[in-house]
């Protein structure tokens, strides 16, 4: 089966996120003062062949652990579509 996998990588909560803060300040300056707790992460889309959805997730989790996310500073979530 072919799966489309979406990986969402975010800076770990509690760590300083200067890019998120800069965007939050810019939003406030534009009149979106109600926006808070803004964080910038990274989205990665991957097509892959796997025997099942669980197998696809397991493979992408291994990709995250080895390369896509830094285990010291980032957390990730995996979502499969199609």
């Amino acid at each position, binding site marked *: 089966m072919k799966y489309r996998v979406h990986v969402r990588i975010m800076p770990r909560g509690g760590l300083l996120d200067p890019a998120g803060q800069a965007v939050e300040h810019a939003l406030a300056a534009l009149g979106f003062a109600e926006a808070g707790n803004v964080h910038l992460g990274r989205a990665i889309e991957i097509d892959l062949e796997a025997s099942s959805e669980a197998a696809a997730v397991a493979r992408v989790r291994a990709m995250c652990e080895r390369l896509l996310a830094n285990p*010291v500073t980032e957390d990730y979530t995996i979502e499969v579509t199609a």
Partner: protein
Amino acid sequence: MLRVGVVSFPGSNCEEETLRAARRVGAEAVGIWHRDTTLNGADVVILPGGFSYGDYLRAGAIARFSPIMAAIRRHADAGGAVIGICNGFQILCEAGLLPGALMRNAGLHYQSRPVDVRIERTDTIVTRAYRAGQVIRIPIGHGDGRYVAPPEVLAALEADGRVVLRYAGQALDAPANPNGSMHDIAGICNPAGTVVGMMPHPERLADASLGSDVGMGVFHSIAASFAGAA
């Protein structure tokens, strides 16, 4: 004769300055290509600065899987000397040869300027030629230099004296800590002091005609570390 190898990745910089500084202390200095699988007889391996693979994904994240890295890991595990400068430090952290990670500077801006760093420890391969507590003014050039590690890792680094360089003082009226590094960390080492990562660029201040050659201390330290063994 001491043999120093300097690894080039696509996007590395300052390899020539690093080779030249190594030759000035009497070492034989050779380039190593990132696709090589042996260290070409090097006693000391230096991973230079720059932006390997364009810093895609994260700084150092892709270089870490270059073919040469397996040989570097074996060298480090066997007690061999490995030094990461700037991007090299980022690569060593990504490879797990040093703990922690280097994140985007707290102020978001790329910082290219001198900083003052204090020599916290003089029994490493890169600090032997300095005095303990000595503050040196040395260049940095990085956008991702904010050292981050979990609290227990930071506590262990401090308890074991593995912080080699720490931002200190007030270089040129700019903030002492240029990037928001935890504990003002500018450089750390492994427990044996044989694997060292640092954000400053000693090879960029290694010629007295620039007004200071304080970075040569790093290379004199390397030479002194091997003086008995050669």
